Protein backbone atom coordinates (compact mmCIF):
# COMPACT_ATOMS: atom_id res chain seq x y z
CA UNK A 1 0.00 0.00 0.00
CA UNK A 2 2.78 2.43 0.91
CA UNK A 3 4.55 1.38 -2.22
CA UNK A 4 1.45 2.12 -4.28
CA UNK A 5 1.03 5.58 -2.74
CA UNK A 6 4.68 6.41 -3.35
CA UNK A 7 4.46 5.40 -7.00
CA UNK A 8 1.18 7.30 -7.47
CA UNK A 9 2.35 10.57 -5.92
CA UNK A 10 5.75 10.48 -7.63
CA UNK A 11 4.00 11.66 -10.79
CA UNK A 12 3.54 15.46 -10.67
CA UNK A 13 0.36 15.28 -12.76
CA UNK A 14 -1.18 12.67 -10.46
CA UNK A 15 -0.31 14.74 -7.40
CA UNK A 16 -1.80 17.84 -9.04
CA UNK A 17 -4.93 15.93 -10.09
CA UNK A 18 -5.40 14.51 -6.61
CA UNK A 19 -4.95 17.91 -4.91
CA UNK A 20 -7.37 19.66 -7.27
CA UNK A 21 -9.95 16.90 -6.98
CA UNK A 22 -9.72 16.91 -3.18
CA UNK A 23 -10.27 20.69 -3.20
CA UNK A 24 -13.36 20.34 -5.43
CA UNK A 25 -14.80 17.63 -3.18
CA UNK A 26 -14.23 19.89 -0.16
CA UNK A 27 -16.00 22.82 -1.88
CA UNK A 28 -18.92 20.58 -2.89
CA UNK A 29 -19.33 19.27 0.67
CA UNK A 30 -19.01 22.71 2.26
CA UNK A 31 -21.31 24.57 -0.16
CA UNK A 32 -24.53 24.35 1.93
CA UNK A 33 -22.61 25.42 5.06
CA UNK A 34 -20.86 28.36 3.41
CA UNK A 35 -23.85 29.59 1.41
CA UNK A 36 -26.90 28.73 3.48
CA UNK A 37 -29.30 30.62 1.18
CA UNK A 38 -28.67 28.33 -1.76
CA UNK A 39 -27.70 28.98 -5.40
CA UNK A 40 -31.07 30.40 -6.50
CA UNK A 41 -30.94 33.38 -4.13
CA UNK A 42 -30.85 36.74 -5.93
CA UNK A 43 -28.17 39.03 -4.47
CA UNK A 44 -28.04 42.05 -6.75
CA UNK A 45 -28.17 43.43 -10.28
CA UNK A 46 -27.79 40.92 -13.13
CA UNK A 47 -24.51 40.55 -15.05
CA UNK A 48 -22.27 42.37 -12.57
CA UNK A 49 -18.63 41.75 -13.54
CA UNK A 50 -16.18 39.84 -11.32
CA UNK A 51 -14.86 42.07 -8.56
CA UNK A 52 -18.10 44.00 -8.05
CA UNK A 53 -18.73 44.68 -4.32
CA UNK A 54 -19.39 41.38 -2.56
CA UNK A 55 -19.22 39.38 -5.80
CA UNK A 56 -15.89 37.68 -6.28
CA UNK A 57 -16.76 36.28 -9.73
CA UNK A 58 -19.76 38.40 -10.68
CA UNK A 59 -23.47 37.70 -11.02
CA UNK A 60 -25.45 35.82 -13.66
CA UNK A 61 -28.41 36.78 -15.91
CA UNK A 62 -30.81 36.77 -12.96
CA UNK A 63 -28.51 38.53 -10.50
CA UNK A 64 -27.48 35.40 -8.60
CA UNK A 65 -24.00 35.07 -7.13
CA UNK A 66 -21.92 33.04 -9.62
CA UNK A 67 -19.61 31.84 -6.83
CA UNK A 68 -22.51 30.14 -5.02
CA UNK A 69 -23.69 28.63 -8.30
CA UNK A 70 -20.24 27.23 -9.05
CA UNK A 71 -19.95 25.70 -5.56
CA UNK A 72 -23.39 24.06 -5.76
CA UNK A 73 -22.73 22.99 -9.35
CA UNK A 74 -19.79 20.92 -8.09
CA UNK A 75 -22.23 18.89 -5.96
CA UNK A 76 -24.35 17.92 -8.98
CA UNK A 77 -21.35 17.08 -11.15
CA UNK A 78 -19.66 14.91 -8.53
CA UNK A 79 -22.87 13.23 -7.39
CA UNK A 80 -23.92 12.28 -10.93
CA UNK A 81 -20.39 11.45 -12.05
CA UNK A 82 -19.63 9.15 -9.14
CA UNK A 83 -23.02 7.43 -8.82
CA UNK A 84 -23.33 6.83 -12.57
CA UNK A 85 -19.83 5.34 -12.60
CA UNK A 86 -20.61 3.07 -9.62
CA UNK A 87 -23.78 1.79 -11.34
CA UNK A 88 -21.97 1.31 -14.65
CA UNK A 89 -19.06 -0.46 -12.93
CA UNK A 90 -21.51 -2.77 -11.15
CA UNK A 91 -23.27 -3.70 -14.38
CA UNK A 92 -20.02 -4.04 -16.27
CA UNK A 93 -18.43 -6.26 -13.61
CA UNK A 94 -21.50 -8.51 -13.46
CA UNK A 95 -21.87 -8.99 -17.23
CA UNK A 96 -18.14 -9.00 -17.97
CA UNK A 97 -17.32 -11.58 -15.32
CA UNK A 98 -20.12 -13.92 -16.39
CA UNK A 99 -19.05 -13.61 -20.04
CA UNK A 100 -15.36 -14.15 -19.28
CA UNK A 101 -15.82 -16.92 -16.71
CA UNK A 102 -18.28 -19.11 -18.63
CA UNK A 103 -17.06 -18.32 -22.16
CA UNK A 104 -18.69 -20.08 -25.10
CA UNK A 105 -22.23 -19.19 -26.07
CA UNK A 106 -22.89 -16.97 -23.03
CA UNK A 107 -19.77 -14.98 -23.83
CA UNK A 108 -20.72 -14.67 -27.52
CA UNK A 109 -24.18 -13.42 -26.68
CA UNK A 110 -23.11 -10.93 -24.01
CA UNK A 111 -20.30 -9.58 -26.16
CA UNK A 112 -22.70 -8.98 -29.08
CA UNK A 113 -24.90 -6.96 -26.73
CA UNK A 114 -21.87 -5.01 -25.51
CA UNK A 115 -20.80 -4.33 -29.08
CA UNK A 116 -24.29 -3.15 -29.95
CA UNK A 117 -24.23 -0.57 -27.17
CA UNK A 118 -20.86 0.67 -28.41
CA UNK A 119 -21.98 1.05 -32.04
CA UNK A 120 -25.19 3.00 -31.52
CA UNK A 121 -24.91 6.78 -30.96
CA UNK A 122 -24.84 6.75 -27.18
CA UNK A 123 -25.49 10.44 -26.57
CA UNK A 124 -28.70 10.38 -28.61
CA UNK A 125 -29.77 7.26 -26.69
CA UNK A 126 -29.00 9.13 -23.46
CA UNK A 127 -31.17 12.07 -24.61
CA UNK A 128 -34.05 9.73 -25.45
CA UNK A 129 -33.75 7.91 -22.11
CA UNK A 130 -33.66 11.08 -20.01
CA UNK A 131 -36.38 12.84 -22.01
CA UNK A 132 -38.71 9.81 -21.81
CA UNK A 133 -38.03 9.11 -18.12
CA UNK A 134 -38.44 12.86 -17.37
CA UNK A 135 -35.32 14.89 -16.52
CA UNK A 136 -34.11 14.35 -12.95
CA UNK A 137 -30.99 13.43 -11.03
CA UNK A 138 -32.01 9.76 -11.08
CA UNK A 139 -32.72 9.60 -14.81
CA UNK A 140 -29.34 11.24 -15.56
CA UNK A 141 -27.56 8.63 -13.41
CA UNK A 142 -29.49 5.71 -14.94
CA UNK A 143 -28.98 7.00 -18.48
CA UNK A 144 -25.26 7.66 -18.13
CA UNK A 145 -24.74 4.27 -16.46
CA UNK A 146 -26.61 2.55 -19.30
CA UNK A 147 -24.33 4.07 -21.95
CA UNK A 148 -21.05 3.57 -20.08
CA UNK A 149 -21.10 -0.02 -18.75
CA UNK A 150 -19.74 -1.65 -21.96
CA UNK A 151 -16.23 -0.24 -21.36
CA UNK A 152 -16.05 -1.95 -17.95
CA UNK A 153 -17.61 -5.17 -19.25
CA UNK A 154 -14.95 -5.52 -21.95
CA UNK A 155 -12.07 -4.96 -19.52
CA UNK A 156 -13.51 -7.33 -16.90
CA UNK A 157 -14.18 -10.02 -19.49
CA UNK A 158 -10.60 -9.79 -20.74
CA UNK A 159 -9.22 -10.18 -17.22
CA UNK A 160 -11.50 -13.13 -16.46
CA UNK A 161 -10.55 -14.88 -19.69
CA UNK A 162 -6.89 -14.93 -18.69
CA UNK A 163 -7.42 -15.54 -14.96
CA UNK A 164 -9.96 -18.36 -15.14
CA UNK A 165 -7.44 -20.98 -16.21
CA UNK A 166 -4.88 -20.04 -13.55
CA UNK A 167 -3.93 -22.51 -10.82
CA UNK A 168 -5.62 -20.74 -7.91
CA UNK A 169 -8.94 -20.93 -9.75
CA UNK A 170 -8.46 -24.64 -10.44
CA UNK A 171 -7.60 -25.13 -6.76
CA UNK A 172 -10.77 -23.36 -5.69
CA UNK A 173 -12.79 -25.55 -8.02
CA UNK A 174 -11.12 -28.71 -6.69
CA UNK A 175 -12.10 -27.93 -3.12
CA UNK A 176 -15.69 -27.66 -4.32
CA UNK A 177 -16.30 -23.92 -4.42
CA UNK A 178 -19.37 -22.72 -6.26
CA UNK A 179 -19.07 -20.60 -9.43
CA UNK A 180 -20.41 -17.46 -7.72
CA UNK A 181 -17.84 -17.88 -4.93
CA UNK A 182 -15.00 -18.33 -7.38
CA UNK A 183 -16.08 -15.31 -9.45
CA UNK A 184 -16.49 -12.88 -6.57
CA UNK A 185 -13.99 -14.04 -3.93
CA UNK A 186 -11.22 -15.56 -6.07
CA UNK A 187 -11.03 -13.95 -9.51
CA UNK A 188 -12.59 -10.52 -8.97
CA UNK A 189 -10.06 -9.30 -6.36
CA UNK A 190 -7.29 -10.15 -8.82
CA UNK A 191 -9.04 -8.26 -11.62
CA UNK A 192 -9.55 -5.12 -9.56
CA UNK A 193 -6.62 -2.90 -10.68
CA UNK A 194 -7.78 -2.39 -14.29
CA UNK A 195 -11.37 -1.92 -13.07
CA UNK A 196 -10.23 0.86 -10.73
CA UNK A 197 -8.27 2.56 -13.52
CA UNK A 198 -11.09 2.53 -16.06
CA UNK A 199 -13.63 3.63 -13.44
CA UNK A 200 -11.58 6.68 -12.50
CA UNK A 201 -11.52 7.73 -16.14
CA UNK A 202 -15.26 7.09 -16.49
CA UNK A 203 -16.13 9.59 -13.74
CA UNK A 204 -14.74 12.37 -15.94
CA UNK A 205 -16.74 11.25 -18.95
CA UNK A 206 -19.88 10.95 -16.84
CA UNK A 207 -19.38 14.55 -15.65
CA UNK A 208 -19.03 15.68 -19.27
CA UNK A 209 -22.21 13.80 -20.22
CA UNK A 210 -24.12 15.32 -17.29
CA UNK A 211 -23.01 18.83 -18.24
CA UNK A 212 -24.11 18.24 -21.85
CA UNK A 213 -27.54 17.04 -20.68
CA UNK A 214 -28.00 20.05 -18.40
CA UNK A 215 -26.80 22.37 -21.15
CA UNK A 216 -29.58 21.04 -23.42
CA UNK A 217 -32.14 21.55 -20.65
CA UNK A 218 -32.33 17.86 -19.77
CA UNK A 219 -30.89 18.25 -16.27
CA UNK A 220 -32.78 18.18 -13.00
CA UNK A 221 -34.92 21.36 -13.09
CA UNK A 222 -34.61 21.82 -9.31
CA UNK A 223 -30.82 21.87 -9.22
CA UNK A 224 -28.26 24.32 -10.55
CA UNK A 225 -25.40 22.57 -12.33
CA UNK A 226 -22.41 23.79 -14.34
CA UNK A 227 -24.02 22.67 -17.58
CA UNK A 228 -27.31 24.44 -16.87
CA UNK A 229 -25.40 27.60 -15.87
CA UNK A 230 -23.77 27.62 -19.31
CA UNK A 231 -27.05 26.82 -21.05
CA UNK A 232 -28.86 29.58 -19.16
CA UNK A 233 -26.18 32.16 -19.97
CA UNK A 234 -26.14 31.65 -23.75
CA UNK A 235 -27.95 34.92 -24.47
CA UNK A 236 -25.59 36.81 -22.15
CA UNK A 237 -22.38 35.35 -23.58
CA UNK A 238 -21.82 38.31 -25.90
CA UNK A 239 -21.85 40.91 -23.12
CA UNK A 240 -20.79 38.97 -20.01
CA UNK A 241 -18.07 36.42 -20.76
CA UNK A 242 -17.76 35.25 -17.16
CA UNK A 243 -21.25 33.71 -17.17
CA UNK A 244 -20.15 31.02 -19.65
CA UNK A 245 -16.37 30.94 -19.24
CA UNK A 246 -16.27 30.18 -15.49
CA UNK A 247 -18.62 27.15 -15.34
CA UNK A 248 -16.85 25.72 -18.40
CA UNK A 249 -13.44 26.13 -16.80
CA UNK A 250 -14.81 24.40 -13.66
CA UNK A 251 -15.89 21.38 -15.74
CA UNK A 252 -12.57 21.30 -17.59
CA UNK A 253 -10.45 21.49 -14.43
CA UNK A 254 -12.48 18.76 -12.70
CA UNK A 255 -12.36 16.37 -15.66
CA UNK A 256 -8.68 17.07 -16.27
CA UNK A 257 -7.91 16.32 -12.60
CA UNK A 258 -9.80 13.01 -12.89
CA UNK A 259 -7.93 12.07 -16.07
CA UNK A 260 -4.60 12.83 -14.37
CA UNK A 261 -5.65 10.63 -11.44
CA UNK A 262 -6.61 7.86 -13.87
CA UNK A 263 -3.22 8.06 -15.59
CA UNK A 264 -1.46 7.98 -12.23
CA UNK A 265 -3.47 4.98 -11.04
CA UNK A 266 -2.69 3.20 -14.29
CA UNK A 267 1.03 3.64 -13.75
CA UNK A 268 0.95 2.86 -10.04
CA UNK A 269 -1.20 -0.28 -10.36
CA UNK A 270 0.46 -1.74 -13.45
CA UNK A 271 4.17 -1.01 -12.97
CA UNK A 272 5.11 -3.47 -15.68
CA UNK A 273 2.85 -1.89 -18.29
CA UNK A 274 4.47 1.49 -17.94
CA UNK A 275 4.83 3.40 -21.19
Amino acid at each position, binding site marked *: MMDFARRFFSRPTALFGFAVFAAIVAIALAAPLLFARGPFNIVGMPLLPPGAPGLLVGSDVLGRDMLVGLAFGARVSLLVGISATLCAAGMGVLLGSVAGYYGGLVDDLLMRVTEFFQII*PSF*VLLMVLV*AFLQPSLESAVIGIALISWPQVARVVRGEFLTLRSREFVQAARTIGMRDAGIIFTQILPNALPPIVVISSMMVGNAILAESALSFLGLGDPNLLSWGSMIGGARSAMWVAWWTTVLPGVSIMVTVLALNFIGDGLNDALNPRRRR
Partner: protein
Amino acid sequence: MKLRYIAMRLVKTVLVAIAVVLLSFFLIRLAPGDAATVMAGQSGYADEAFMKDLRAEYGLDQPLPVQLWKYMDQVAHGDLGTSYVRRQPVLAIILERLPNTLLLDAFALVVAAAGGIWLGAMAARRPGSALDNATTVLAMLFYSVPQFWLGMMMMLLFAVWLGWLPPFGIETMGADYTGLARLGDIGLHILLPGTTLALYFMASYARLTRTAMIEVADQDFVKTARAKGIGERQVARRHILRNALIPLITFAGLQASILVGGNVLVENVFSWPGVGTLAYEAVTQRDNPLLLGIFIVTAILVSLFNLITDIAYSVADPRVELGR
Protein backbone atom coordinates in the same frame (compact mmCIF):
# COMPACT_ATOMS: atom_id res chain seq x y z
CA MET B 1 -12.89 -15.52 -48.79
CA LYS B 2 -13.19 -11.75 -48.81
CA LEU B 3 -16.75 -12.06 -50.14
CA ARG B 4 -17.64 -14.27 -47.21
CA TYR B 5 -16.29 -11.68 -44.78
CA ILE B 6 -18.33 -8.94 -46.44
CA ALA B 7 -21.47 -11.10 -46.39
CA MET B 8 -20.97 -11.80 -42.66
CA ARG B 9 -20.57 -8.10 -42.00
CA LEU B 10 -23.76 -7.36 -43.97
CA VAL B 11 -25.73 -9.82 -41.87
CA LYS B 12 -24.34 -8.21 -38.72
CA THR B 13 -25.41 -4.76 -39.90
CA VAL B 14 -28.96 -5.98 -40.53
CA LEU B 15 -29.03 -7.55 -37.04
CA VAL B 16 -27.88 -4.27 -35.48
CA ALA B 17 -30.65 -2.42 -37.35
CA ILE B 18 -33.26 -4.89 -36.07
CA ALA B 19 -31.90 -4.54 -32.52
CA VAL B 20 -32.13 -0.73 -32.80
CA VAL B 21 -35.82 -0.94 -33.73
CA LEU B 22 -36.44 -3.47 -30.95
CA LEU B 23 -34.78 -1.18 -28.40
CA SER B 24 -36.83 1.79 -29.66
CA PHE B 25 -40.05 -0.17 -29.21
CA PHE B 26 -39.25 -0.61 -25.53
CA LEU B 27 -38.00 2.97 -25.14
CA ILE B 28 -41.45 4.27 -26.19
CA ARG B 29 -42.86 2.45 -23.18
CA LEU B 30 -40.62 4.44 -20.81
CA ALA B 31 -42.49 7.67 -21.45
CA PRO B 32 -45.48 8.23 -19.19
CA GLY B 33 -48.77 7.61 -20.98
CA ASP B 34 -49.14 6.32 -24.52
CA ALA B 35 -49.99 7.83 -27.92
CA ALA B 36 -53.68 7.79 -26.95
CA THR B 37 -53.10 10.01 -23.88
CA VAL B 38 -51.11 12.47 -25.99
CA MET B 39 -53.79 12.65 -28.69
CA ALA B 40 -56.56 12.85 -26.12
CA GLY B 41 -54.68 15.68 -24.43
CA GLN B 42 -54.51 17.56 -27.71
CA SER B 43 -58.22 17.07 -28.42
CA GLY B 44 -59.07 18.90 -25.19
CA TYR B 45 -61.59 16.49 -23.70
CA ALA B 46 -61.69 12.71 -23.47
CA ASP B 47 -63.72 10.17 -21.52
CA GLU B 48 -62.97 6.48 -21.02
CA ALA B 49 -64.94 5.38 -24.10
CA PHE B 50 -63.10 7.82 -26.37
CA MET B 51 -59.74 6.66 -25.01
CA LYS B 52 -60.74 3.05 -25.64
CA ASP B 53 -61.71 3.86 -29.22
CA LEU B 54 -58.42 5.67 -29.77
CA ARG B 55 -56.43 2.72 -28.39
CA ALA B 56 -58.36 0.33 -30.61
CA GLU B 57 -57.79 2.53 -33.65
CA TYR B 58 -54.03 2.58 -33.16
CA GLY B 59 -53.82 -1.05 -32.05
CA LEU B 60 -52.65 -0.12 -28.55
CA ASP B 61 -55.07 -2.63 -26.97
CA GLN B 62 -53.45 -5.60 -28.67
CA PRO B 63 -50.92 -7.95 -27.05
CA LEU B 64 -47.31 -6.74 -26.93
CA PRO B 65 -45.87 -9.17 -29.53
CA VAL B 66 -48.54 -8.12 -32.05
CA GLN B 67 -47.77 -4.47 -31.43
CA LEU B 68 -44.06 -5.15 -31.78
CA TRP B 69 -44.58 -6.93 -35.10
CA LYS B 70 -46.70 -4.05 -36.41
CA TYR B 71 -44.10 -1.52 -35.26
CA MET B 72 -41.23 -3.36 -36.97
CA ASP B 73 -43.32 -3.67 -40.12
CA GLN B 74 -43.93 0.08 -40.09
CA VAL B 75 -40.30 1.00 -39.55
CA ALA B 76 -39.20 -1.42 -42.26
CA HIS B 77 -41.46 0.49 -44.65
CA GLY B 78 -39.85 3.78 -43.63
CA ASP B 79 -42.73 4.89 -41.43
CA LEU B 80 -41.22 6.37 -38.26
CA GLY B 81 -44.48 7.95 -37.14
CA THR B 82 -45.75 11.51 -37.22
CA SER B 83 -44.25 14.43 -35.35
CA TYR B 84 -46.50 15.62 -32.53
CA VAL B 85 -45.61 19.25 -33.18
CA ARG B 86 -44.99 19.55 -36.91
CA ARG B 87 -47.69 17.12 -38.04
CA GLN B 88 -45.40 15.75 -40.74
CA PRO B 89 -43.87 12.29 -41.20
CA VAL B 90 -40.79 12.02 -38.95
CA LEU B 91 -38.62 10.49 -41.68
CA ALA B 92 -39.30 13.37 -44.10
CA ILE B 93 -38.34 15.97 -41.47
CA ILE B 94 -35.08 14.15 -40.70
CA LEU B 95 -34.15 13.59 -44.34
CA GLU B 96 -34.63 17.28 -45.05
CA ARG B 97 -32.01 18.18 -42.41
CA LEU B 98 -29.65 15.27 -43.03
CA PRO B 99 -27.59 16.78 -45.92
CA ASN B 100 -26.54 19.72 -43.71
CA THR B 101 -25.33 17.35 -41.00
CA LEU B 102 -23.48 15.13 -43.48
CA LEU B 103 -21.76 18.21 -44.95
CA LEU B 104 -20.63 19.32 -41.50
CA ASP B 105 -19.43 15.82 -40.56
CA ALA B 106 -17.54 15.32 -43.82
CA PHE B 107 -15.77 18.65 -43.30
CA ALA B 108 -14.96 17.80 -39.67
CA LEU B 109 -13.64 14.31 -40.50
CA VAL B 110 -11.41 15.57 -43.31
CA VAL B 111 -9.98 18.36 -41.14
CA ALA B 112 -9.52 15.98 -38.20
CA ALA B 113 -7.83 13.27 -40.27
CA ALA B 114 -5.57 15.63 -42.22
CA GLY B 115 -4.55 17.68 -39.19
CA GLY B 116 -4.28 14.70 -36.84
CA ILE B 117 -2.21 12.55 -39.17
CA TRP B 118 0.12 15.44 -39.94
CA LEU B 119 0.56 16.28 -36.23
CA GLY B 120 1.01 12.62 -35.27
CA ALA B 121 3.57 12.01 -38.01
CA MET B 122 5.54 15.08 -36.96
CA ALA B 123 5.42 14.01 -33.31
CA ALA B 124 6.50 10.44 -34.12
CA ARG B 125 9.55 11.68 -36.02
CA ARG B 126 11.04 13.06 -32.79
CA PRO B 127 9.46 11.44 -29.70
CA GLY B 128 9.98 13.64 -26.65
CA SER B 129 10.33 16.84 -28.67
CA ALA B 130 8.42 20.03 -27.86
CA LEU B 131 5.90 19.33 -30.61
CA ASP B 132 5.40 15.76 -29.36
CA ASN B 133 4.74 16.93 -25.81
CA ALA B 134 2.48 19.74 -27.00
CA THR B 135 0.39 17.20 -28.96
CA THR B 136 -0.01 14.99 -25.89
CA VAL B 137 -1.02 17.91 -23.66
CA LEU B 138 -3.49 19.26 -26.23
CA ALA B 139 -5.04 15.82 -26.67
CA MET B 140 -5.51 15.52 -22.90
CA LEU B 141 -7.07 18.99 -22.83
CA PHE B 142 -9.52 18.32 -25.66
CA TYR B 143 -10.63 15.09 -23.92
CA SER B 144 -11.45 17.08 -20.78
CA VAL B 145 -13.41 19.96 -22.31
CA PRO B 146 -17.17 19.84 -22.90
CA GLN B 147 -17.56 20.06 -26.67
CA PHE B 148 -20.44 22.52 -26.53
CA TRP B 149 -18.40 24.84 -24.33
CA LEU B 150 -15.40 24.61 -26.64
CA GLY B 151 -17.74 25.72 -29.44
CA MET B 152 -18.96 28.67 -27.40
CA MET B 153 -15.40 29.72 -26.64
CA MET B 154 -14.48 29.50 -30.34
CA MET B 155 -17.50 31.65 -31.10
CA LEU B 156 -16.59 34.15 -28.40
CA LEU B 157 -13.03 34.43 -29.70
CA PHE B 158 -13.41 34.34 -33.49
CA ALA B 159 -16.89 35.77 -33.99
CA VAL B 160 -17.52 38.11 -31.05
CA TRP B 161 -14.10 39.48 -30.08
CA LEU B 162 -12.18 39.24 -33.34
CA GLY B 163 -15.18 39.42 -35.67
CA TRP B 164 -13.50 37.25 -38.32
CA LEU B 165 -16.19 34.64 -38.83
CA PRO B 166 -19.99 34.49 -38.77
CA PRO B 167 -21.28 33.02 -35.49
CA PHE B 168 -24.58 31.47 -36.56
CA GLY B 169 -26.30 29.47 -39.25
CA ILE B 170 -25.26 27.89 -42.52
CA GLU B 171 -25.43 30.99 -44.75
CA THR B 172 -25.99 34.74 -44.46
CA MET B 173 -29.69 35.35 -43.99
CA GLY B 174 -31.32 37.45 -46.69
CA ALA B 175 -28.16 37.70 -48.77
CA ASP B 176 -29.48 35.31 -51.46
CA TYR B 177 -26.09 34.45 -52.90
CA THR B 178 -26.00 32.09 -55.84
CA GLY B 179 -23.39 29.81 -57.36
CA LEU B 180 -19.81 30.29 -56.22
CA ALA B 181 -20.62 33.20 -53.90
CA ARG B 182 -23.11 30.97 -52.02
CA LEU B 183 -20.54 28.18 -51.77
CA GLY B 184 -18.01 30.60 -50.32
CA ASP B 185 -20.58 31.90 -47.87
CA ILE B 186 -21.35 28.36 -46.65
CA GLY B 187 -17.62 27.66 -46.48
CA LEU B 188 -17.20 30.64 -44.17
CA HIS B 189 -20.07 29.50 -41.95
CA ILE B 190 -18.84 25.91 -41.67
CA LEU B 191 -15.41 26.89 -40.34
CA LEU B 192 -16.34 27.41 -36.67
CA PRO B 193 -18.71 24.46 -36.08
CA GLY B 194 -16.62 22.19 -38.33
CA THR B 195 -13.37 22.95 -36.53
CA THR B 196 -15.00 22.58 -33.10
CA LEU B 197 -16.19 19.10 -34.05
CA ALA B 198 -12.83 18.28 -35.63
CA LEU B 199 -10.61 19.31 -32.70
CA TYR B 200 -11.66 16.42 -30.46
CA PHE B 201 -11.03 13.85 -33.18
CA MET B 202 -7.87 15.54 -34.35
CA ALA B 203 -6.38 14.94 -30.90
CA SER B 204 -7.26 11.23 -31.06
CA TYR B 205 -5.95 10.88 -34.62
CA ALA B 206 -2.67 12.54 -33.67
CA ARG B 207 -2.17 10.18 -30.72
CA LEU B 208 -3.08 7.10 -32.75
CA THR B 209 -0.89 8.01 -35.70
CA ARG B 210 1.99 8.67 -33.34
CA THR B 211 1.80 5.28 -31.57
CA ALA B 212 1.16 3.39 -34.82
CA MET B 213 4.11 5.03 -36.56
CA ILE B 214 6.50 4.36 -33.69
CA GLU B 215 5.33 0.73 -33.67
CA VAL B 216 5.66 0.24 -37.42
CA ALA B 217 9.05 1.97 -37.53
CA ASP B 218 10.40 -0.88 -35.41
CA GLN B 219 9.42 -3.65 -37.83
CA ASP B 220 11.73 -5.62 -40.08
CA PHE B 221 10.45 -4.44 -43.45
CA VAL B 222 11.31 -0.87 -42.48
CA LYS B 223 14.87 -1.91 -41.64
CA THR B 224 15.01 -3.73 -44.98
CA ALA B 225 13.88 -0.59 -46.80
CA ARG B 226 16.57 1.43 -45.04
CA ALA B 227 19.17 -1.25 -45.78
CA LYS B 228 18.25 -1.07 -49.45
CA GLY B 229 19.31 2.57 -49.33
CA ILE B 230 15.91 4.21 -49.67
CA GLY B 231 15.94 7.80 -48.39
CA GLU B 232 14.63 8.52 -44.93
CA ARG B 233 11.77 10.66 -46.27
CA GLN B 234 10.62 7.92 -48.62
CA VAL B 235 10.78 5.35 -45.82
CA ALA B 236 8.74 7.58 -43.53
CA ARG B 237 6.09 8.28 -46.11
CA ARG B 238 5.80 5.15 -48.26
CA HIS B 239 6.67 2.45 -45.73
CA ILE B 240 5.89 3.64 -42.21
CA LEU B 241 2.99 6.07 -42.66
CA ARG B 242 1.15 3.91 -45.18
CA ASN B 243 1.09 0.92 -42.86
CA ALA B 244 0.39 3.02 -39.79
CA LEU B 245 -2.71 4.50 -41.41
CA ILE B 246 -4.56 1.20 -41.86
CA PRO B 247 -5.79 0.95 -38.22
CA LEU B 248 -7.08 4.53 -38.52
CA ILE B 249 -9.76 3.34 -40.96
CA THR B 250 -11.45 1.18 -38.32
CA PHE B 251 -11.00 3.95 -35.84
CA ALA B 252 -13.01 6.33 -38.05
CA GLY B 253 -15.87 3.82 -37.91
CA LEU B 254 -15.72 3.54 -34.13
CA GLN B 255 -15.77 7.31 -33.78
CA ALA B 256 -18.93 7.73 -35.85
CA SER B 257 -21.20 7.18 -32.85
CA ILE B 258 -19.31 9.84 -30.88
CA LEU B 259 -19.53 12.18 -33.86
CA VAL B 260 -23.34 12.05 -33.77
CA GLY B 261 -23.32 13.12 -30.11
CA GLY B 262 -21.01 15.99 -31.07
CA ASN B 263 -23.44 16.99 -33.80
CA VAL B 264 -26.27 17.47 -31.31
CA LEU B 265 -24.19 19.79 -29.13
CA VAL B 266 -22.11 21.69 -31.68
CA GLU B 267 -24.91 22.24 -34.22
CA ASN B 268 -27.03 23.54 -31.39
CA VAL B 269 -24.37 26.05 -30.29
CA PHE B 270 -23.88 27.40 -33.83
CA SER B 271 -27.55 27.08 -34.93
CA TRP B 272 -26.45 24.82 -37.78
CA PRO B 273 -29.72 23.58 -39.37
CA GLY B 274 -28.92 19.86 -39.17
CA VAL B 275 -30.22 16.73 -37.48
CA GLY B 276 -28.45 17.65 -34.22
CA THR B 277 -30.31 20.93 -33.88
CA LEU B 278 -33.48 19.04 -34.80
CA ALA B 279 -32.86 16.67 -31.86
CA TYR B 280 -32.61 19.66 -29.54
CA GLU B 281 -35.85 21.12 -30.93
CA ALA B 282 -37.53 17.74 -30.41
CA VAL B 283 -36.40 17.71 -26.76
CA THR B 284 -37.58 21.25 -25.99
CA GLN B 285 -40.92 20.69 -27.76
CA ARG B 286 -41.41 17.27 -26.11
CA ASP B 287 -41.78 15.77 -29.58
CA ASN B 288 -41.07 12.14 -28.60
CA PRO B 289 -41.69 10.46 -32.01
CA LEU B 290 -39.26 12.87 -33.68
CA LEU B 291 -36.57 12.31 -31.02
CA LEU B 292 -36.92 8.54 -31.27
CA GLY B 293 -36.88 8.76 -35.07
CA ILE B 294 -33.58 10.64 -34.92
CA PHE B 295 -32.17 7.88 -32.70
CA ILE B 296 -33.24 5.17 -35.16
CA VAL B 297 -31.98 6.98 -38.27
CA THR B 298 -28.61 7.99 -36.76
CA ALA B 299 -28.06 4.52 -35.27
CA ILE B 300 -28.66 2.86 -38.64
CA LEU B 301 -26.45 5.41 -40.43
CA VAL B 302 -23.63 4.80 -37.93
CA SER B 303 -23.82 1.03 -38.38
CA LEU B 304 -23.79 1.50 -42.18
CA PHE B 305 -20.72 3.72 -41.84
CA ASN B 306 -19.10 0.99 -39.73
CA LEU B 307 -19.87 -1.53 -42.46
CA ILE B 308 -18.19 0.69 -45.05
CA THR B 309 -15.07 1.26 -42.93
CA ASP B 310 -14.79 -2.47 -42.19
CA ILE B 311 -14.95 -3.30 -45.88
CA ALA B 312 -12.43 -0.56 -46.68
CA TYR B 313 -10.17 -2.00 -43.96
CA SER B 314 -10.40 -5.50 -45.43
CA VAL B 315 -9.43 -4.09 -48.83
CA ALA B 316 -6.52 -2.04 -47.41
CA ASP B 317 -5.17 -4.88 -45.26
CA PRO B 318 -5.17 -8.27 -47.01
CA ARG B 319 -4.45 -10.07 -43.71
CA VAL B 320 -7.92 -9.29 -42.38
CA GLU B 321 -9.69 -12.19 -44.10
CA LEU B 322 -8.04 -14.62 -41.70
CA GLY B 323 -9.83 -13.17 -38.71
CA ARG B 324 -13.44 -12.17 -38.39
